[in-house]
């Protein structure tokens, strides 16, 4: 019975990682591709880590697997947000069929990180 649960979780994880891999190739622009990897990819690897916790029914192993799962769930949105923001600010255009750009006008034209602005001027 529990073996069946482990197999179902592993099959679901492999399925969603496949969905992420297909999405990263087939989606039209960067922002759609990030959607595929950060949602489907996180779900796939999370299901596989749950399978590990169910496979070894020991507290020590399950705690490590669930801690890894919690870490991935916490960091995947942060990484996706940082990368998407960097891509938007460095001028990566969305695909042709994107009509609404809700971020337009919310950033200054020549946005720079503060550490860049404080950098000493280059010698001629």
């Amino acid at each position, binding site marked *: 019975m529990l073996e069946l649960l482990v197999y179902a979780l592993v099959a679901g994880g492999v399925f969603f*990682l496949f969905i*992420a*891999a297909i999405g990263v*190739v087939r989606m039209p622009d960067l922002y759609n591709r990030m959607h595929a990897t950060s949602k489907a990819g996180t779900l796939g*690897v999370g299901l596989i880590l749950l399978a590990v916790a169910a496979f070894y029914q020991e507290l020590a192993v399950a705690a490590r*697997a669930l801690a890894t799962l919690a870490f991935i769930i916490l960091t995947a949105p942060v*990484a996706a947000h940082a*990368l998407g923001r960097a891509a938007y600010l*460095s001028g990566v255009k969305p695909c042709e069929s994107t009509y609404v750009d809700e971020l337009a006008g919310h950033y200054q034209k020549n946005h720079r990180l503060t550490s860049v602005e404080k950098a000493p001027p280059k010698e001629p």
Partner: protein
Amino acid sequence: MSFLEGAMLALFFTLPFAIYRLVRGPTLPDRVVGLDLITTVAVALAALYAMVSGQTAFLDVATALALFAFLATLGLARYIEYRGQKGE
């Protein structure tokens, strides 16, 4: 071949898709997305191998790999933002 070994073999076939995105681009953030998917699949492979081999130390490999992937993505995102408006 057991079910878990078959699942590992199936996961290996997701890597060419991610490597395609890593090589083709077209922009630098696209390549970072491909790299991110590769490390996600590597974490899943390490977790699966912890079940196949029976050695739970591979779970620590998965944890360290997830941490490393997060830091690498943050560093590359910071580099892309620092570099400013420059297409590739």
